[in-house]
């Protein structure tokens, strides 16, 4: 796996090269979200306009560029992607190129959008995945993090998707002690089955101690970093930056987690950004190192409806 060590001011920095652009992400709704979750790693909210929407035309230009780079899958995040008025059209366009995954809070979905996406999904040979963020198995555990009433609204959104024939991947950020995973997941499964989702897919994410999460819990200490020694014998494909890039309205960044970091902007287009190595000097890089695959669709927890 490619990695090298850069020396800056006498300090050796662990650096990751992109091996292949497997995942192309889009910050499609910028930092705008209808919710203000208190663990959000980029502090998205109804008033955060630091990053703007991506237009269908802009996404399409990147999709076309991605063909020559051999991209394997496309991911759409925000903010809340479905605040972008072109989101449905963007997903429909993407399914002509490859598999698409959209990360949503499922609280703003409209039935005609879902109907259009069902039709597009059926017409495409590629999978359309919905990842729905819910951070507790009931209102008492979810709403303090995501906002009053959000559990009921997200539950209704999941029901809409399931009724339409999708198997949404419920994504929960671990805001409980890790030792409680099995109990929490069992409760998630029970709740989802009661809501009519009889074979729930659930993905657990570690909390990223950046953005709003710094206030909710704490930030990374200076010592919480990946060192060059830690990469000896390590499978670097566990790092998102080894196989992914993200397009925002500012350019192309190293990964979906670090877009607010000035050094994350690697270029103005994909070609440029795929050639740049990246020094993994941030605290969040340690979480990526520890847990791996945190941005992919694969689960890190108990799933399949069994507890």
């Amino acid at each position: 796996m490619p990695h090298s060590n850069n020396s800056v001011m006498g300090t050796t920095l662990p650096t990751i090269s992109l091996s292949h652009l497997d995942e192309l992400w889009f910050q499609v709704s910028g930092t705008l979200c209808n919710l203000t979750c208190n663990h959000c790693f980029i502090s998205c909210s109804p008033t955060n306009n630091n990053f703007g929407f991506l237009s269908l035309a802009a996404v399409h230009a990147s999709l076309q560029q991605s063909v020559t780079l051999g991209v394997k899958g496309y991911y759409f995040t925000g903010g809340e992607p479905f605040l972008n008025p072109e989101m449905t059209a963007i997903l429909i366009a993407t399914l002509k190129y490859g598999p698409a995954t959209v990360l949503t809070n499922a609280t703003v979905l409209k039935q005609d959008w879902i109907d259009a996406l069902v039709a597009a999904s059926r017409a495409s040979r590629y999978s359309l995945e919905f990842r729905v963020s819910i951070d507790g198995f009931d209102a008492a555990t979810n709403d303090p993090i995501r906002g009053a009433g959000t559990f009921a609204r997200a539950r209704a959104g999941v029901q809409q998707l399931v009724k339409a024939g999708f198997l949404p991947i419920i994504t929960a950020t671990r805001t409980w002690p890790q030792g409680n995973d099995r109990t929490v997941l069992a409760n998630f499964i029970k709740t989802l089955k009661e809501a009519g989702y009889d074979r729930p897919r659930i993905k657990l994410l570690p909390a990223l101690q950046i953005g709003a999460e710094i206030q909710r819990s704490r930030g990374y200490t200076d010592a919480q970093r990946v060192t060059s020694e830690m990469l000896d014998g390590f499978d670097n494909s566990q790092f998102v930056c080894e196989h992914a890039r993200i397009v925002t309205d500012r350019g192309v960044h190293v990964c979906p987690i670090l877009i607010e970091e000035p050094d994350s902007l690697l270029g103005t287009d994909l070609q440029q950004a795929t050639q740049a190595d990246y020094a993994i000097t941030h605290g969040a890089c340690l979480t990526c190192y520890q847990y791996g695959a945190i941005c992919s669709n694969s689960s890190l927890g108990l799933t399949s409806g069994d507890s």
Partner: protein
Amino acid sequence: MTTQIALFGGVYSNYLALEAAITDARARGISDLYCLGDLGAFGPFPDRVFPILQRHNVQCIQGNYDDSIGNDLDNCQCGYTAERDNYYANISYLYTQQHTSADNKAFLRQLPRTRIIQVEQTQILLCHGSPRKLNEFLWESTSPDHFLEPFFSQHAVDVIAVTHTGIKWQRQLPSGLFVNVGVLGRPENDGTTNVWYTILEMSGSKTSVEFVPVEYDYQQLAQDMQNEQLPSEFIDTINTGWWTTCLEVLPQKERISGKH
């Protein structure tokens, strides 16, 4: 001139399906048989597949399971990430590790990771997961054309054959023919008990694909698995044709067509 070859995907210790597939291929007059790796896993009595493969001169390449068993690694390298999937994968792995002889482990160790064969005018790359990675899942619904295309020129081949996912598919691309040959080890998550192998037919510079359903004595296999105290979830899959474990790697399209 027309030539056929038979390609077997993961055997997963299903010695009964392996014998049935070989019998079927021989009955069609096919002499060249290949296996794309993962000889053990999931099923009972892993040592039983080796004499069958050797007796019929089935040319094998190495799968992730073969690398792990052959080299006594800690896990099967199947590529699962969910705890439940890994729980069952580990049961299967420990059983297979304990019941594979030292000689057969040595056989697994020396298998090539990939192989290019020429049949008629056609160059065919055989690999387990993908041309670039031993345990990469190449599902039909998550493998874009432009992702697959470069592999043909990189390896200078006309056909690429893989397995690993457990579900067969094929796609004709401008640069060549891509085939996932399916597996012999367990049914295809479609509610039927048969398994599948693949015949490639080369005629001049043209290649065609036939996916062949293989009926075998699945009840005997289920009984063997029960006698070996393998998980009831595995036996359910053999008896029903629906996958019960290792589900979380399935993309939406492949998952929705199953039962669990």
